[in-house]
Structures are given as C-alpha cells and as structure tokens.
C-alpha cells in the first residue's frame, strides 16, 4: 500500500468512526429518542439474538433467492436484448432511446401493479427487481457492443475470422469491461428493489422483517436487520469489484 492509498483509507475509516461516534454520543446523551435510534449496544444485543433464530435464516434465504432469480432474469434478458439491438444501426438508433427513456421513469410507481399481476409472494419481487435491473444491463450491453472499434473488426476479417470467431474473440472480450459495469449496476439495483419491494408489501424476507419490526416499534431489532443488510451489501460490493477488476486486468 503506498502513501496516498494509506491516506485515503485512513480518511475513509476515520469518517466511519466519526459516524459511529456520533451515533453513540447522540444516544448516550439522550439528544435523540432511543425509540427512534437505539444505543449501539442495544442494536448489537438485538442482532445477537436475531442471528440465533431460525426465522432470521429463513428470511435471509427467501430474500437472497429472490434477488438471485431477479438478477438472473435481468441479466439474460438484458444481455440478449442489448446484443440483438446492436446488430443493426437502425435498431440501435430506434430502440436505445426508448430503453434509456423508460429507465428514467421511476418504476417504483408501478410497484402496486406488480403486486396485482404477480401476487404478494416472492413472484412480484422477482418481477419488480428483474424489470428494474434489466434497464442498466441492456443499456450497458448496447454501449459495450456498439462502441466496438471498427479497426479490430477489420483486422479480424482480414485474417479470415468467421462470425462466431469474431464474436468469441473480438466482440465479446472487447465488450466485457462495459458489460461488467452494467451487470454490477444491475445487481445493486436488483438488490435495492427486491429489499424495497419486500418492505412495502410482502409476506416474507428481510424487507418484510424490517417493516414488521418498525410496525411493532421494536427499533433495536429493526436496526439490527438494517445493519445486517448494510454489511451484506458492502461485502457483495467488495466481491463484485474484485471480480470486475480481475476481468479488466485479464
């Protein structure tokens, strides 16, 4: 780790420490009601109790399965649609603005429709998460394949590359970095929409449990769930970044 890297990390860690310190101080002095924001140790104790329950793990597995299904659908649909759109210039010109235009609409507004169509079970969350994540994946796939450098395609053609060889050895590796960015953005949008959907309306999952704890005014338990989600999200982010860097650096 070089010096500037060390400085960056120190500042980042200090920022988190200050945030945690402010939380502790605010609750210790009683300047914020403990009903709204419980003390760190109360949240810690609630978290400890929570992870020992079977309900915790079943909620976690419901949510992770929902995210996995939604992301898989979004990824397959997004990449196939995105790739097909780039096959002709006309399709790119017509369809790309439509997809990016639709993406600017807050799809949250249609969440009640997802409940109507797919029910209150996990199906509606899968559909909702998949729909939301489809857009960034499709858009980045379009960008990845349509910005292909003409020179590489010409070189490959002059060497006698066939269609499949050109796709496998030129188009795909050339597009991969941007493709990966799309999938990363898509994944975190999927993660957020599934949890959000569960919080608004569902019968199971992590989001449902957070909403339930809030309804019962059990704020320590609610924050314990939130801390768990944050930790999961940070871990996933680190994993995805590491994976993406590996791809970028071959």
């Amino acid at each position: 780790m070089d010096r500037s890297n060390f400085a960056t990390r120190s500042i980042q860690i200090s920022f988190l420490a200050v945030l945690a310190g402010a939380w502790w101080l605010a609750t210790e002095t009683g300047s914020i009601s403990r009903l709204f924001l419980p003390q760190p140790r109360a949240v810690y104790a609630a978290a400890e109790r929570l992870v020992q329950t079977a309900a915790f793990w079943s909620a976690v597995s419901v949510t992770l399965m929902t995210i996995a299904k939604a992301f898989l659908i979004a990824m397959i649909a997004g990449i196939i649609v995105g790739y097909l759109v780039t096959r002709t210039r006309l399709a790119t010109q017509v369809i790309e603005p439509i997809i990016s235009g639709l993406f600017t609409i807050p799809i949250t507004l249609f969440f009640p429709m997802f409940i109507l169509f797919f029910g209150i079970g996990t199906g509606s969350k899968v559909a909702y998460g998949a729909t939301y994540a489809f857009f960034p994946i499709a858009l980045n796939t379009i960008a990845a394949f349509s910005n292909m450098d003409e020179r590489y395609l010409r070189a490959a053609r002059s060497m006698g590359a066939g269609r499949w060889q050109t796709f496998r050895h030129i188009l795909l590796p050339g597009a991969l970095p941007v493709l990966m960015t799309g999938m990363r953005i898509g994944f975190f949008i999927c993660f957020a929409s599934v949890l959000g959907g569960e919080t608004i309306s569902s019968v199971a999952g992590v989001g449902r449990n957070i909403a339930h704890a809030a309804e019962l005014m059990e704020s320590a338990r609610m924050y314990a769930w939130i801390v768990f989600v944050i930790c999961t999200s940070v871990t996933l982010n680190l994993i995805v970044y590491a994976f993406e860097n590996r791809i970028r650096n071959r």
Partner: protein
Amino acid sequence: MSESAISIRNVSQRYGDAGAPDSVLALDDISLEVRKGEFVCLLGPSGCGKSTLLNVIGGLFKPTSGMCHVAGRLVDGSPHPDKIAFVFQESTLFPWYSIIENFRIALKFQGIPQSEWDDRAMQALKAVGMSSFASHYPDQLSVGMRQRVNMARGICVETDILLMDEPFAALDEQTRMVLGEDLSQLLAATGKTIVFVTHSLAEAVFLSDRIVVMSARPGKIKTIIDVNEAHPRSPDFMLEPRFSELRNECYALLRDEIRSTMAAQRDPQSAGA
C-alpha cells in the same frame, strides 16, 4: 520475376451513389500489375485512395467496377487470408490478448493447425527482436514496439502477399527509419510480394522496387517510378545522390497534388467543379 502476383484491371471505387451530392470517386479506373516478390509503394496525398486500393486488393472492399486478381484468384470483396495478410495503419493488436495470444488468434483465424501456433509466433517475434515480450500485453509496450509486433503478426501467417497500410504512421522519424531498415532486411529474406501505403517520400524510396505515385480526387495513377536497388538496402542508400534525386522527383510530382488537395479542403465549392 515476371509472374504477376496481383493484377488490377480498371478498378473504380465510388463511395455513395453516383450523382448524389456527397458521392466521392475514390478510385478512377486503376490498372496495375504487381510482380511476384516485388515491393510496391502507393504514394500520394491524403485522400487519394491509396488505402481504398489496398482494401480492394485485400478483399475488404468490393470495387464498384473492375476486377482484381490475386495469385490468379478473383478477389471480389471477400478476404483470402491464406494468400494475403494485412498490417494496418495503427497497431491493431487486440488489447485484451497478450502478444503471444494475439499471434495465436491470428493463426487460428487463418486456419493454421494449433500445433504450429507457438513455434511460428516465437519465430516471428524473434525476427523482430521482441521474443522476450511474448507474455506482455499490448498496452505495456511503447508505440514502436507495438508496431514491431504488429508487423511480426502480419509476417507469421506466412502468406505470399503482405499489404501494409501506413504501418509506421504513428511513429517518430527515428523509429520509423529503424523499422524501415528492419523491414527491408526481413523481407529480402522472405521473398514476399508487398504493397505498402505511405505518404512519406523517404520511406517510399528506401523500401520500394516501384513507387506508384497517385493523384487525388479522383484517385488515379499519375506515374510509376522504378527504384533500381537490390534488397536488403543499407542506410547508406539514403546518402547516395540517386536517393535524393528519386525523392525530389516524387516530391515534384506530388507538390501540385498536395496544393490542389489543400485548396479543395479550404474551398470545397470551387474545387468540386
């Protein structure tokens, strides 16, 4: 030596539909025979259609009219990778593959059996003095080294014909000279037929057996100049009076072309008439 490797008959190439206002006649009725083992330079101002002609020979463009035969086969807008290899303007090494993988992929595309890939690649890299960089990625090399490797990639496919589209354009003059000398050495040994596009006068005189001087808009052959000097050529050739004479002859032929091209760029209306 009299056998014809490339035979171009009345080739014209038009971009856009004839009669359309933005239509450009890039090549106008070009005929040229390139003998086996000959080094031919296409020299001319930018926009004279030299690269277009090269792409027609290589089968990347289908000519609007006329015919082009390579090794007796009609080339009509489809590449013949077993006969013709390209070395492009800028380095077209694929940045996602290491140097050795770039060679393997070129050989794979060309349909060479896998057992030969590494031997051929290393042989070509050795020929340009780059064998210790086999596992590097293109962006880890300098521009000059990249173009050296790019040249070797064109050579390793062992085609009879090599088409080079301003391969040294991105290099500084010194590197360009050194690479030119190396190319002369390398090619004298292989006996390849080469068509080389350039707008450098010194490069054209130093490398070619014949210099095809082209004029712009529409692209036509103005003159063909013979350079009677055996390959490989040493840098001393550049110091001979004959070298300067040939260079000046080319410049005299091109000067008016360049001036009229520049005038056309400044004032497209009047030049279009």
